[in-house]
């Protein structure tokens, strides 16, 4: 789960990691007030969205007076901002962060993430901050310092110090950087982060280390034990269908395509999307109904997928094993009658009482097309789309 820059900086403040003076504003007026409180210009106005790359598309503005700050905020708030990292649809700017501008001497990069292969947290740092770290990692991996961390002992001071000196910092700044890294690690562990990044971590002309930007991503699996962090999530940014699905216990991701799919199991759901693409169609969504597969859940899943007007065909692929297919078929037919489904529904059911379930579907008089396996489903999809 991502949090906004201003929220991440709030956490940094709590851990003693220096951030620029400033505050978040939800209205243009509040933004102007924030600037007045800061006092001396210049001011920086930063769009708050769940993605980076804002500077490249006008999401970060510099202003000299509170009135200009207000105008800048006005031009950003509520606007759909597209950046190289948001995808084509962009994100609506929910708030702006108004900060004092800093006099920057150097820009560094520091971050902590999970090294899956080594099964431990890893500290990454570079003397070349302010650039896209993935690009740097791909083009010049030697520019990145990597330090693996043993959770049993935590990030040791000697490790933090070695990294700080590897960045080419003079002693006083290396010492400050080392202290900052230890605090960052504590935050990472105590808040169950998946990823924290300070890019750039600046050395000001006065020689201080300040986190100019802040990115924190919390491990979704750990949110249950951080209700305060979970509460920071901005539901307004969620795709409404996706949010609705989550509320119903369904795992749904909307894509752009003509064949919807409903599957039990994430791997099988991805494979089903891949199969749809393989036969020349476009998957309209990812939907994992999970282990439950109750009649109500099936009906809700149908409704959510079919809310997407681009869907011309639906493929239901349920491999239950222990699941009773006749019960499932009943749920499907009831749901279909209630919703009034206008598109063909290809159904592949596997589990106990499969034949009884299929008979129920066929005799319902609704546009269900039972298939015996994914191969047959492939053929049917291709066939029906040619006609459609």
């Amino acid at each position, binding site marked *: 789960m991502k949090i906004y820059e201003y929220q991440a900086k709030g956490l940094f403040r709590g851990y003693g990691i220096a951030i620029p003076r400033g505050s978040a504003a939800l209205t243009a007026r509040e933004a102007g007030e924030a600037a007045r409180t800061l006092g001396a210009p210049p001011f920086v106005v930063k769009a708050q969205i769940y993605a980076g790359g804002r500077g490249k598309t006008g999401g970060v503005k510099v202003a000299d007076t509170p009135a200009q700050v207000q105008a800048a905020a006005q031009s950003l708030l509520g606007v759909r901002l597209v950046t190289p990292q948001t995808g084509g649809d962009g994100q609506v700017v929910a708030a702006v962060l108004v900060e004092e501008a800093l006099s920057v001497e150097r820009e560094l990069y520091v971050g902590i993430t*999970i090294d*899956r*292969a080594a*099964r*431990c*947290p890893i500290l990454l740092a570079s003397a070349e901050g302010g650039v896209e*770290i*993935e690009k740097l*990692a*791909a083009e010049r991996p030697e520019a990145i310092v990597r330090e693996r961390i043993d*959770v*049993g002992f935590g990030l040791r001071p000697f490790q933090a110090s070695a990294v700080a000196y590897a960045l080419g910092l003079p002693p006083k700044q290396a010492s400050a950087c080392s202290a900052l890294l230890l605090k960052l690690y504590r935050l990472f*562990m105590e808040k*169950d982060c*998946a990823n924290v990044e300070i890019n750039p971590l600046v050395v000001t002309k006065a020689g201080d280390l300040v986190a100019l930007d802040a990115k924190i991503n919390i*491990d*979704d*699996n*750990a949110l*249950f*034990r951080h209700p305060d962090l979970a509460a920071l999530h901005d539901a307004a940014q969620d795709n409404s269908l996706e949010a609705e699905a989550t509320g119903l216990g369904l*795992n749904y*991701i909307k*894509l752009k395509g003509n064949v919807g799919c409903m*599957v*039990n*199991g*994430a*791997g*099988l*759901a*991805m*494979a*089903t*999307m*891949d*199969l*749809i*693409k*393989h036969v020349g169609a476009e*998957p309209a969504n*990812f939907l*994992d109904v999970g282990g439950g597969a109750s009649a109500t859940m099936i009906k809700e899943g149908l409704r959510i997928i079919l809310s997407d007007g681009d869907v011309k065909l639906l493929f239901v692929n349920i*491999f*239950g*094993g*222990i699941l009773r297919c006749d019960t499932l078929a009943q749920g499907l037919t009831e749901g279909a009658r209630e919703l009034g489904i206008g598109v063909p529904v290809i159904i592949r059911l*596997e*589990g106990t009482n499969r034949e009884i379930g299929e008979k129920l579907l066929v005799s319902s008089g609704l546009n269900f097309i039972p298939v015996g*396996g*994914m*191969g047959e*489903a*492939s053929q049917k999809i291709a066939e029906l789309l040619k006609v459609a």
Partner: protein
Amino acid sequence: MSILVDTETRVVVQGITGSEGAFHSAQMREYGTNVVAGVTPGKGGMMHEGVPVFNSVRQAVGETGANTSAIFVRAAFAADAIMEAADAGIRLIVCLTEGIPTLDMIAARQFVDRRGALLVGPNTPGVISPGQCKVGVMAGYIHREGPVGIASRSGTLTYEVVYQLTRRGMGQSTCVGIGGDPIIGLSFVDILQRFEADRETEAVIIIGEIGGSQEEEAAEYFRTRMTKPIVAFIAGVTAPPERRMGHAGAIISGGRGGAGDKIRALEAAGVVVARNPADIGETLIGVLRGA
């Protein structure tokens, strides 16, 4: 032969009195698995459908000689349950639970390694050696004994592949769900090593997906160390970047972990990669018959 579980496996079910634990214990026993004990703190001393229940795994092991654990414990407590099993001397720990925090799993995996135990999962359907033993939630009837080893990051996609094989008369030696999480126990490479050494396994199917580098590591192991053929399928060619696709470990992050890269690495190593999930079983049969 089989790997990991067989007729000698003696299972203690952690969380036996919970709804999942109770249901799947009964299913495992029906399949022929030797479930010798259950653990639910506070319910020690009672019998659950003929299985003695204990307050701790240590006690269960002491009284029944359990050597394998099936963990059906909620995510908030599952990592601790894994550690408890390792501490009690359990040799193989199968953790079915989905949703365990990543940092908890990093600690649990370290703990397990230090005690010399093996961990399968978490977020796995389990392990089955058809005709011998099932430790997990997969439906027994779709499996049959045979020469194909399966290692998978998925649940129902594994069943799909198993069923494709079974219907064509091609059975399985052992099916191992390594799990869908970013931090797990036995990796693809760990399982491949075991299949390579297993007399009864003639070929292997790997079912991978986006995220992490398990498949790339498997490709390298195959290239340098393996004599038996592998057929692979990698789910998520159509997955969008930066989105978690159900499994905590199924995410293309910072441009890394895409299905295309994995497929390229596997094919460069000589692994046959099926492109259509409906053809995975057929592809394996073709490779084995052609070999």
